[in-house]
């Protein structure tokens, strides 16, 4: 008997077997990420899912911290999402960055402000942009590096947040180089001292290694 075109009852609706799971994961991601513009974010979520890219989802809920300057801008959680999505390539096309930025409901003005800090005409060097974004998160150089370590680390959350020395040295010298107030010799001596210090720790720099040192 041919299937009738007319719908008589709910049993005639064929529910794709994968649909419930997709919707469940989508909802969980939305609750966890708490996007400001749900529609824009949903588009980003599904286009990433369709293309097999990392999803624009925070790993865990980010509590609105009181010290956060503006609630609409970049947060450590969002930067981590961006890093997860874009860090595969060394240089990222400006357009791709713009799309990803927009899909996380981040203000475009902030992106332009960040890009103005360095010359990114032919592609955005991701680690440089990442360093600039970290400097937007934390006011001082040390707090920017702290954010960078916490995002880049493979340690479990709340751990020592260690990153390889080379990565740390690159980010630190890049940010210090942009800051005209810091003389180059000081940066070099700081990095040399740090290298000696972490040589017996498998060349991994933790947050405690440099933030405590400053307080001495």
């Amino acid at each position: 008997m041919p299937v009738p075109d007319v719908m008589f009852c709910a049993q005639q609706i064929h529910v794709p077997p994968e649909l419930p799971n997709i919707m469940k994961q989508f909802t969980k991601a939305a609750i966890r990420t708490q996007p400001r513009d749900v529609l824009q974010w949903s588009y980003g979520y599904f286009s990433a899912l369709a293309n097999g890219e990392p999803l624009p989802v925070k790993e865990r809920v980010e509590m609105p911290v009181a010290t956060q300057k503006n609630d609409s801008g970049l947060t450590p959680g969002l930067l981590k999402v961006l890093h997860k999505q874009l860090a595969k390539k060394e240089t990222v096309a400006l357009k791709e960055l713009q799309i990803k930025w927009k899909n996380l409901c981040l203000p475009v003005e902030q992106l332009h402000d960040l890009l103005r800090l360095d010359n990114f005409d032919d592609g955005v060097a991701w680690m440089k942009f990442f360093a600039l974004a970290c400097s937007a998160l934390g006011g001082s150089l040390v707090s920017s590096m702290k954010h960078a370590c916490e995002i880049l680390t493979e340690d479990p959350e709340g751990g020592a947040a260690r990153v390889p020395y080379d990565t740390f040295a690159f980010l630190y010298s890049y940010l210090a180089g942009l800051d005209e107030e810091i003389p180059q010799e000081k940066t070099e001596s700081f990095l040399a001292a740090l290298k000696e210090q972490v040589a017996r720790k498998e060349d991994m720099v933790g947050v405690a290694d440099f933030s405590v040192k400053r307080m001495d």
Partner: protein
Amino acid sequence: MSIPFSNTTQRIPRGFANLLEGLAREVLRNQPPDIPSFAAKYFENLLIEREKTGFDPTEWGAKLEDRYYNNRAFNELAPPGGKSQAEEKTEESAQSEVAETSGTTEENGVKLTEEQAALKIQASFRGYKTRKEINCPKEAIAEKEEPTEPDKKEPEQAQ
């Protein structure tokens, strides 16, 4: 940093339910082979539409949710105009002319919602009851069958 101990900040984003509902409906209607890419296209169309017409389905859904969950507040706050005026007119014709103050309309509003609530409760309870009745005979039969069979077998084995 303070330790978050309450889950009140973990909410479903405003208007998300509406988006999810729309997506599920369109997926069921179109039966696409690749759901993620279909969903991406669906949301892209909604975005384009929002840019063109300014119609935001999430905002609309959020308004609907607000109206649905805070219906009582809407009823109480609503000035004697619009719907309540129409209600008043029917009341006036039915009741005496004296009952015209806003107090009576409020009372009526409460009564109406109580009636509706009662109807809903009754309907759901009846549904539950009939479902139970339908399910019960099966269970009763199954229960009856189970004990009878071993009863028969046992004497056979004994013999």
